[in-house]
């Protein structure tokens, strides 16, 4: 009778659902088991990433001795023009203003270019810098001093020519929704050293959020405890992290203990790993109350360091985020993802123009990025940190002519066929350039690097064979590099 009384309508309905679910699982598991036998993939040995349920972020050793322990990924959302920054193409400059040859347009699909556009030479002068003799434009006066620490890949290629899917591809290895991001994979594979901070932190720089949205740091099919935690640049790093007025830390502790008990009961009843995730998140938030606020507070930095980055406490800026990134790296955060925005230089308005807004974007990232490099280096962190800078695709050597007409401002359209990124840090060959594009900077002529190759290379530096970092989902051993063959770009390895 007591049992009947405890059995509410909701419990009854829930158990019905559970029954159906069990039926479904029963059939689908049998199906997957059959599929697995049929494909004969049983020889694929998988690494064990299971952890104690109470500490899903516990550190695990890499598969092989790793070159780097953590990653700082600087994503320039909107796709910065390589032709105004790193790709010196004198022939393009010479042909500036001439009609684009038909061979450039045949079979191509553009976001906005229509008819016959004009070729567009670089808007800024280039010069050679450093021991490596790298060509660089005059828009990055700070970064050019560090050019011998950078490893450029000028032959990056993508399959997507619109921002959101291209950003998804860069971040998750797949242009569709629902896949796990790079940071989530790394956190899943390696855990994190500092349990008082999230292991995968995302910082936006004000302005516009990336078109790909929160999916870019989603854990996809991985347990959600591995998703990126988006932190704010000022105030509480995470909203409502601090205790509200009248709630003391011991009271908060007692509250969490009670919630924890209830969650444990739910977990015992249903065994859903997401319940464990929730318990772990509450506990982490409690620990974060002490450490996160301190880690994110750049007012604790000396004035000289803040000046080096050009950061001003209280702003949402890329400069502040670079400084925070160094503080997080120091504290053992595994994957730090920074976004800058506004690089989509179509020339549709002044903000998006290569001759106007682009210069502001360069100024916003130049000094902080250089300061981050120098600061990591002086603290010995660059040796085991991987720094990656890049957008989601490149830009055309043709001037954009929206609706077939010359536009008021100068801009370029999307070019998925070639773009430039750079890496720096442990395990990467400094002061080198890998890959090459044609004289117009339009197509790759040497050593193309796919997004999945970049991912395989990053995982290699972190100590993984990209085939072996996988997670069983929907009958497939899912992996970041997906199903097409990916290659570790061995040429850039130190």
């Amino acid at each position, binding site marked *: 009778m007591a049992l009947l009384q405890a059995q509410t309508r909701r419990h009854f309905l829930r158990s019905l659902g559970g029954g159906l679910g069990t039926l479904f699982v029963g059939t689908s598991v049998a199906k997957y088991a059959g599929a697995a036998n049929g494909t004969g993939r049983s020889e694929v040995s998988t690494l064990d990433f299971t952890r104690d349920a109470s500490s899903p972020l516990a550190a695990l050793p890499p598969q092989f001795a790793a070159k780097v322990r953590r990653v700082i990924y600087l994503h320039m959302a909107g796709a910065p023009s390589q032709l105004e920054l790193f790709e010196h193409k004198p022939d393009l400059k010479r042909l500036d203003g001439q009609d684009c040859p038909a061979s450039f347009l045949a079979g191509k699909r553009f976001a906005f270019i229509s008819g016959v556009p004009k070729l567009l030479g670089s808007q800024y002068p280039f010069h050679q810098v450093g021991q490596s003799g790298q060509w660089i434009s005059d828009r990055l006066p700070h970064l050019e001093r560090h050019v011998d620490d950078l490893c450029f890949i000028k032959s990056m290629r993508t399959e997507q020519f619109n921002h959101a899917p291209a950003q998804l591809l860069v971040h998750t290895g797949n242009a569709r929704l629902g896949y796990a991001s790079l940071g989530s994979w790394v956190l899943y594979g390696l855990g994190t*050293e500092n349990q008082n901070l999230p292991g995968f932190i995302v910082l936006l720089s004000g302005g516009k959020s990336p078109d790909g949205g929160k999916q870019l740091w989603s854990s996809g099919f991985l347990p959600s405890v591995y998703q990126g935690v988006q932190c704010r640049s000022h105030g509480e790093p995470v909203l409502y992290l601090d205790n509200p007025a009248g709630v003391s830390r011991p009271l908060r502790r007692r509250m969490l203990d009670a919630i924890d008990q209830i969650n444990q009961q739910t977990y015992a009843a249903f065994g859903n790993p997401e319940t464990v995730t929730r318990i772990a998140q509450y506990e982490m938030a409690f620990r974060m109350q002490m450490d996160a606020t301190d880690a994110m507070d750049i007012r604790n930095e000396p004035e000289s360091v803040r000046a080096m980055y050009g950061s001003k406490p209280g702003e949402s800026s890329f400069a502040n985020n670079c400084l925070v990134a160094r503080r997080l790296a120091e*504290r053992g955060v595994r994957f730090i993802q920074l976004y800058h925005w506004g690089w989509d230089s179509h020339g549709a308005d002044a903000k998006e123009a290569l001759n106007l807004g682009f210069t502001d974007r360069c100024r916003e990232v130049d000094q902080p990025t250089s300061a981050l490099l120098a600061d990591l280096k002086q603290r010995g962190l660059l040796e*085991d940190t991987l720094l990656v800078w890049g957008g989601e695709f490149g830009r055309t050597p043709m001037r954009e002519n929206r609706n077939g007409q010359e536009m008021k401002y100068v801009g370029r359209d999307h070019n998925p066929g070639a773009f430039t990124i750079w890496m720096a840090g442990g395990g990467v060959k400094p002061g080198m350039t890998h890959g090459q594009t044609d004289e117009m900077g339009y197509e790759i002529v040497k050593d193309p690097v796919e997004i999945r190759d970049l991912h395989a290379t990053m995982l290699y530096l972190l100590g993984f064979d990209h085939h072996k970092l996988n997670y069983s989902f929907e009958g497939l051993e899912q992996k970041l590099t997906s199903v097409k063959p990916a290659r570790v770009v061995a040429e850039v390895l130190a």
Partner: protein
Amino acid sequence: MTLWGYRVSRQLRSSIIVLAPILIVLVLLVFFPPDGNERSKGAQFIGRFHPLVVHFPIALFLLVPVLELAGLDSRLSHLRLSAGFVLGLATVGAIVAAILGWCLARSGGYSGPILTQHMWGGISLTAVCWLCWMLRGSADQPGGRLLYATALATGVVLVGWTGYRGGQLSEGEDHLTEYMPVGLRHSLGLSDAGPAIASSGANTFYGARVEPIFATRCFTCHGPHRHKANLRLDSYSSLMRGGKRGLVVRAGNAQGSELFRRITLPPDHDDFMPKAGRRPLSAGQVKLIELWIASGASGTLPTDAIKEATAGLTSPTLASEVTFEEIDAAAVIRRQAQIAPELARLQKRFPNILEYESRSSADLHLNASILGSKFGDSDLAALSSLAEHITVADFSRTTITDRSVTAIAAMKRLRVLRLMHTGIPTPPWKGYAFWINSSR
């Protein structure tokens, strides 16, 4: 019972019947030897049972001396009664194994000295098995016991030798010595170096640039020990001689060379090499081979004779394919087991910052830097029990002082040490610089 008018024992008669298939195998081996050509898949399928089946006669044969010796004790004398039966079974098993072995070798494209030795070892063993069986029947005649014992002993030695050669065929030539402890290797007079790679000399283009590609990518099947398709790539002369379908390299004509055609096909093509899902040759390797064939496929061309090969395709690019070694999980666990309990204890005190350097290593990685001011000299001292296993240590921004210098010096295998922004100023380290350098 009589045979050709003579009275023979029943055992002798069955022995003679068994001799027939042994002679048939012998004829097969002599007139249809394994020659490195691949043949029928059906025969290969049957042949693949050779490693499985071969263990039965081995076990049965080795059981015979055990039974005979144990039977010398009067309390166990009944054991000797079954020795003849076991020997008979072993002989039949050996014949079956020999036939299967011939199927595998003849149709699976095996050849080479190790195979030949294994093959003759196997057939000799079968014959010795049969001989033992014969001799056992007449062991009551004068000298019969001694003959029988000698034959048994010969058989036991042959089992060991043939088994070792078989192991070399399936597990690699150095399968017994590969993971041998260093001390034992030295006492046996073996070097530490890996398997030697055949080389035609580093001062020719072929020897310095082309053959190393074959050595790393092709020798497994077309090398000293296996000659699939009757093709060997381990010397210039054998390469130019070609395989069962004729020449594989046509000097000056890369596109018309079978070898070049096969390495440039789409990887899922049936004729593609390297076969069976192995990693294709890198673009640089393919280019080098193409340049070499186009230039006349000479064996004496100097190393730097082909200009394009030295400009674009530098050697580091060639060596730059990344390979992932397989982790031998059992071996790693064995090595880690020695320190696992102590590590578990210390990991409780320093969670998430003290870990194995990788899943394939028993070396430790310590990152104390994230504890910052919470990590001091006393904490470092607590790590002393595992000091020798720590190879990477980061103490940056901790509060350790020069009191910890000896504790760090105890980390004898340290490769990487970071001491930025600690209480250890640079000058006192001068005295210790020698071991930091020497351990790097």
